[in-house]
């Protein structure tokens, strides 16, 4: 029988046949003893079956046990993983691949070289400003491999309040600055290496952000 299950430990809801229950909560790893099962009736509005646990602002951020995610401060997008970056050797091949197989909407960025463009990719529902409209997925770039000059081939763009302040922290916690701040299409970027050898693009929040944008909200 198909049921809607809700985990008492983390309040994650999922539907499953009662003969095919996962052996652990898919979200927090709790055992099935913690699942509340109710008949599934294709309800149109999410019912709250289990009160979500409350957060603890004093918890040790190094403790990896399941907990409610922390509250992030308002009016900052510092630290958010905002874009992926894939590299290409031949632009048409990669553009066709993601258009044909995954249905992306891909455009050349405004000032890039049409022969070796920096391409921007909508991978799902978006707003008029080409930011995702729905939570928990990213838009990203297709970039010429030979335009990457640090040797790190970073795969992600992380937005920060200040590149200068972030670079200080990067160096304090075992990372390195690999490319000082530079500008593309009026946006400020830098490349750093994390403590594990991963390359990362830093993108400084533009001064034009109004904090009214859906992507600028906190909760």
């Amino acid at each position, binding site marked *: 029988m198909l049921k809607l299950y809700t985990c008492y430990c983390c309040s994650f809801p999922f539907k499953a046949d009662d003969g095919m229950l996962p052996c652990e909560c898919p979200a927090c790893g709790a055992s099935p003893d913690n699942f509340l099962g109710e008949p599934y009736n294709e309800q149109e509005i999410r019912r709250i079956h289990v009160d979500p646990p409350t957060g603890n602002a004093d918890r040790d*951020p190094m403790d990896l046990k399941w907990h409610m995610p922390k509250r992030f401060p308002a009016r900052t997008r510092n630290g958010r993983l905002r874009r992926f970056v894939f590299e290409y050797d031949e632009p048409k091949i990669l553009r066709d691949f993601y258009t044909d197989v995954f249905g992306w909407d891909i455009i050349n960025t405004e000032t890039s070289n049409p022969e070796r463009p920096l391409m921007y990719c909508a991978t799902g529902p978006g707003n008029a400003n*080409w930011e995702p409209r729905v939570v928990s997925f990213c838009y990203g770039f297709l970039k010429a491999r030979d335009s990457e000059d640090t040797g790190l081939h970073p795969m992600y763009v992380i937005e920060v309040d200040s590149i200068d302040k972030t670079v200080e922290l990067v160096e304090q*916690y075992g990372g390195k600055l690999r490319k000082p701040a530079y500008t*593309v299409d009026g*946006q400020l970027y830098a490349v750093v290496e994390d403590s594990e050898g991963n390359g990362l*693009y830093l993108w400084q929040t533009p001064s034009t952000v109004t904090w009214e944008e859906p992507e600028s909200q906190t909760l």
Partner: protein
Amino acid sequence: MSEYKSGAYPYRPPKKFTKKSLHGRVRTGNLLYEDLVRAQKFYVNVFGWDMFKLPKNVLGRCPDDATPDVICASGPAQFGWEGAVPGYMPAELIHKDDEMNKPYVMMEVEMDVSLQETLDRVVEKGGKIIDSKGEAGDWAEVAMVEDPAGNRLLLWRCPDSRTWEEPETDYDKE
């Protein structure tokens, strides 16, 4: 790289994604670590990320207890650790070893067709299958592939447990 403003280039919004599907959405960015505590200190202190150790069997992986997969909220998150506001995605820290030696993104694929059909399409268009686990545990179907340029993608076919009430499942209704 650049940021787009309404009314500015490219003078049109992105296309509508009208299918009840998350096919093609890049959902998680994965980074490799050698020393978990060192990586934690870096991402907690530099970027303010919040983290927890994923249960085993998520996305078909059963890492050792000493080298777990760690999910990271890089911004406001729901209680299930999916993003709570649009425009960014969660990250995952994965232990680097001989087999797992290249960062990758997790991308969701069609639920209405088999994973094999999606893999066939990837190969037909020039991609390569790196590891096809098929049914992984009782929760997820996953396969690691590379696109024609060698970028690595973990393709995830969501199980039927999805209720379609989850905020991350919205799509462009016609």
